């Protein structure tokens, strides 16, 4: 599904070249759920934006379904780290969620249903007519998630999507994403800085190094398809994997 080959990105900063990502290669299979973790500023967002076709790589390529990415691939939804800025302040919450649906050839009723359902799933029922700036930070972030959910993408790219919500809501949203993923068979790339979350959610966790960024480790999460917030998290396998990821991140930071 998503094939990243030797991708790298240099930013020009005041004339000098700053290598954010050196070279990264990995593959995400169709219907897989991969989490990406790494130190702050290591290039996760950069990587995601290159995969989404929003940023041209300096070297290497990303390909979706075998086609090199040179613009956002069809059927992709992105939840941006800057959730607040990615909502359109001139549209109410409902319209924000509905906007991407408009080109899918749905009837008005279908769209309305999808919007209502998505908002219900992120616990924002009845907030259709609110303006984005009338929402709390976490509610804004959930609106952005609802927009992606309503779109029913084939490929879902999420950049720290639960950073602004409380622990309980976060757990609910994690289960929501896993549920959607397993039910609809979508492919998910999930950036997070919460190690527990990465282990709980993913089939695989990719750990990035500090910049110039390379792949530090690739950890398979063999916790099985059925996961539960209480049981899974309290098991010894979870603790072991958790420790493994934590160790890699610490090592990544130390090496910087």
């Amino acid at each position, binding site marked *: 599904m998503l094939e990243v080959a030797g991708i790298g990105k240099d930013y020009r900063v005041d004339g000098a070249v700053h290598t954010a990502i050196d070279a990264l290669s990995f593959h995400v299979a169709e219907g897989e759920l991969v989490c990406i973790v790494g130190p702050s500023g290591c290039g996760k967002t950069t990587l995601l*934006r290159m995969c*989404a*076709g*929003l940023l041209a790589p300096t070297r290497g390529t990303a390909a979706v379904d075998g086609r090199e990415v040179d*613009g*956002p691939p*069809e059927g*992709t*939804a*992105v939840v*941006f780290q*800057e959730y607040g*800025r*990615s909502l*359109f*302040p*001139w*549209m109410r919450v409902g319209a924000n969620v509905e*906007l*991407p649906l*408009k*080109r899918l050839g749905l009837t008005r009723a279908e769209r309305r249903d999808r919007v209502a359902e998505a908002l219900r799933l992120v616990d924002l029922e009845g907030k259709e007519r609110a*303006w984005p*700036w009338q929402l709390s930070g976490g509610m804004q972030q959930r609106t952005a998630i609802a927009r992606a959910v309503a*779109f029913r993408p084939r490929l879902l*790219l999420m950049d720290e999507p639960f950073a602004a919500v409380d622990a309980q809501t976060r757990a609910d949203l994690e289960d929501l994403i896993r549920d959607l993923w397993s039910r609809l068979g979508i492919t998910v790339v999930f950036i997070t800085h919460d190690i527990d979350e990465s282990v709980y959610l993913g089939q695989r966790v990719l750990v990035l190094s500090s910049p110039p960024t390379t792949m530090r480790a690739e950890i398979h999460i063999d916790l099985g398809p059925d996961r539960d917030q209480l049981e899974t998290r309290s098991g010894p396998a979870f603790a072991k994997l958790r420790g493994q990821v934590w160790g890699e991140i610490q090592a990544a930071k130390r090496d910087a």
Partner: protein
Amino acid sequence: MRSLVRKALLAVGLPAVLFAAWWLASAGSTSFYFPPLSEIVAEFGETWTAERWRDDVLPSVARLAAGYAASCAAGVALGLLIGRVRWLFHATEPVLEFARAVPPPVLVPVIMLFAGIGDGMKIAVIVSGCLWPVLLNTVAGVRSVEPVQLDTAAAYRLGRARTLTAVVLPGASPRIVTGMRQALAIGVILMVVSEMFAAQSGLGFAIVQFQRSYAIPAMWSGILLLGCLGAALAALFSCADRAVLHWYHRQRTEEA
């Protein structure tokens, strides 16, 4: 209710003070070109009769409306195009800057060559001045749309047309409205200027006639009328602005 009264008081307060100051300062003035305000006010009633309104003022305002509407439409359309298409921006900029710098007294004869001397010419003259603030502000607005919002539109593949109407246009609208506000007063000015050429009637024509025939109090009354017209149009404009950009203004005035 209270706030309405307050607003009204604020709106008329300073003009009233200035008017009174003018009244006092000019009382007993013997200067030919600076007659006492009392004389101007007396002249105002005599000059701007119902007949004058019908024959001079209203046709002028109608031309102003036509020219203003055309400028806004053309300015926004061109501005969106130029602001979004970078090569077009660079290719057209010098030519547009050139056109902008041609003074109306030499431009009007050229316009007359192409548009004749009827209403078409006068509307063209109004457009020749009103276009620029709208165009420049639209271009600037389009180019400063929040990048995350553009990324969102691109990621969901909203398509050119929808990105333009649902994202770029509203994103640039605060700037566009500023341009339109600028253009309003310029339109009134150019309405007068256009009637200095090949005119037989009109508000501007009347003012110029008063000036030429040394009917100075009448000329001042015309200038007063222009000011009132501008203020009235601006008040209308503000209402429209509040309605269209309510999401923008409310976000900013909510709690301050």
